[in-house]
């Protein structure tokens, strides 16, 4: 197990270096921070001074090596715009993002999985069709459309909930609902098909032939097996918790990580964008690692495959 985790960690570091290199190249290709930050009318000497100050005059390979070296010393640079450590700016935004993505995640799992499992157990029933229909609706409607519709109904028409900002817990409701609807749909559909797949397996027939009640067949034999594929999807969702929701945060003026991405990319605030990507990629990689460990706990076949390596 330890070997397995160590090899995964080494792979994770590789992944992160690749993400950072990609971020570096794309940011350098997509425009000059000096002209964007100082404005198109800035005098040439100001632009030259800015470029010298941030090392933008150096050849690309030199900038790149300096940048990678920095990262390995946990130095993520200074924001060009705010003159503050980029990491501080990013970390400051994480609680606000988690305040909406965590509750949304709980809704996705808490509603999506039971709905999907129920539908699978009552296949072809009205409830099953209802779950399928609602879940298709849930994950096909774009979040910006849903957000605007919700604002229109609950803020403009009914006046029950605020349409933007972060002043009270009521402000979080619409962003949370918007964020969770798609995930609930995906989770329900996925759990349904995972469960249907498992229910068709010979060991379910064995469990029934044994004389177990249907309830025990489902809880003791079907669900533990269906949880293996479901955990994969949960892993993706956990990984995306911090990346948050650029669109939803922008619509509801929620000061989270998502909005920071949008504004720092627009400003070509290189250090902040790179630091954001590193933090988001790390959370994805960590979530994947957790999923791999969970697989081993849930499925003994994978566990022994690993120890064989």
């Amino acid at each position, binding site marked *: 197990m330890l070997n397995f985790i160590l090899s995964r960690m080494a792979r994770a570091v590789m992944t992160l270096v690749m993400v950072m290199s990609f971020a570096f190249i794309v940011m350098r290709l997509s425009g000059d921070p000096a002209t964007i930050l100082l404005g198109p009318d800035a005098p040439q000497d100001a632009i030259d001074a800015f470029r010298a100050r941030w090392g933008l005059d150096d050849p690309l390979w030199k900038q790149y090596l300096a940048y990678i070296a920095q990262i390995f010393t946990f130095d993520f640079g200074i924001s060009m715009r705010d003159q503050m450590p980029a990491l501080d700016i990013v970390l400051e935004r994480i609680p606000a993002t988690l305040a909406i993505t965590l509750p949304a995640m709980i809704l996705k799992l808490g509603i999506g999985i039971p709905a999907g499992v129920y539908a699978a157990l009552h296949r072809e029933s009205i409830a099953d069709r209802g779950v399928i229909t609602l879940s298709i609706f849930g994950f096909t409607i774009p979040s910006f459309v849903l957000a605007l519709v919700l604002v229109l109904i609950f803020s403009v028409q009914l006046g029950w909930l605020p349409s933007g900002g972060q002043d009270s817990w009521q402000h979080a409701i619409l962003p949370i609902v918007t964020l969770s609807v798609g995930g609930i749909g995906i989770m329900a559909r996925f759990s349904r098909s995972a469960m249907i797949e498992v229910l068709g*397996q*010979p*060991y379910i*027939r*064995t*469990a*029934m*032939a*044994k*004389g*177990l*009640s*249907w309830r025990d067949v489902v809880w*003791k*034999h079907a669900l*533990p*097996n269906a949880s*293996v594929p479901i955990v994969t999807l949960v892993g993706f969702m956990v990984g995306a918790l911090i990346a948050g929701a650029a669109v939803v945060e922008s619509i509801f003026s929620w000061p989270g990580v998502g909005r920071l991405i949008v504004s720092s990319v627009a400003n070509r605030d290189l250090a902040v964008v790179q630091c954001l990507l590193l933090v988001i990629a790390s959370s994805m990689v960590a979530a994947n690692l957790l999923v791999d460990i969970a697989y081993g706990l*849930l*499925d*003994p*076949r994978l566990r*022994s495959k690993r120890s064989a390596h």
Partner: protein
Amino acid sequence: MAFVSIRDLKVSFDGVQVLHGIGLDIGRGEAVGLVGESGCGKSVTWLAALSLLPAKARISGSVRIDGQELIGAPGPEIEKVRGARIAMIFQDPSSSLNPVQRVGKQIMESLRLHRGLKGAMARTEAIRLMNMVGIPSAETRVDLYPHEFSGGQCQRIMIAMALAGQPDLLIADEPTTALDATIQAQILDLLSTIRRETGMAMVFISHDLGAVSAVCDRAAVMYAGKIVESNEITALFAAPRHPYTVGLLDAIPELDVTRARLQPIKGTVPDPKYLPTGCAFAPRCTHATDFCTTDQPELKRQPDSGLLACFHPAGRYKTETLTRREELV
């Protein structure tokens, strides 16, 4: 009265009838073989009896165990029969065990359910059962998972799990089909031994008449959802009457006849959606007459106590086949 008696059992899926009125009696301690090609309804008969078919299956007729009707009985009553009175083992042992649960736990689940054994007592009994079915060093292997056992060993564990409920009848649904020949023989031996020791009845479902003859007293031959012939094993082998039974016997390789070409039954099992109006075997039968294609033969008791559904029973056919084989030598 027979211990288990099936009368006029019919099953259809989505309007397509796959079982056309099965009648079968199993006496206490008796071993009965159910033989026929894939899709002829051997397994469906018993899955229907225990309500293990998908919900879309339409079942009619009667299955009684000690007089208790199972068809249409409420769920909890069927659950009391499954595993406790009638246990079942299946064709693919490796995927018939729950892959994420230790085998010991799966056996103990049956022990708790049918004999109320818990904790250390259940564990000891599970180990005893594993020893009984021939799993070496059961004391340590009781905590392993199904994938850590071979196919043959998984089938042994399935048998141990079935025995845990001390059933009166064991349905063995092609238990050796997925196993190689030597393991097959071991499992057949094991089933015979267990039956001798416990006195339970057994239904052995197989397409292999040879395997059936090794463990059964009596066999019923099924074709396209019907029983076409049934008799004591010795009588069935010595004097098969239905041309289909003759065909099945001809498909068994014989050791004493060297280099004989096996005689396949020409054609395939008819699609249950488009069954012939007459005898379902008529299109493949070399001795069918016009009459066979229009009228269905009934299953009738024969003078020697066997049952047969055929207008032109064989008697000479077997010897004719032998002559053909001798010419080949």
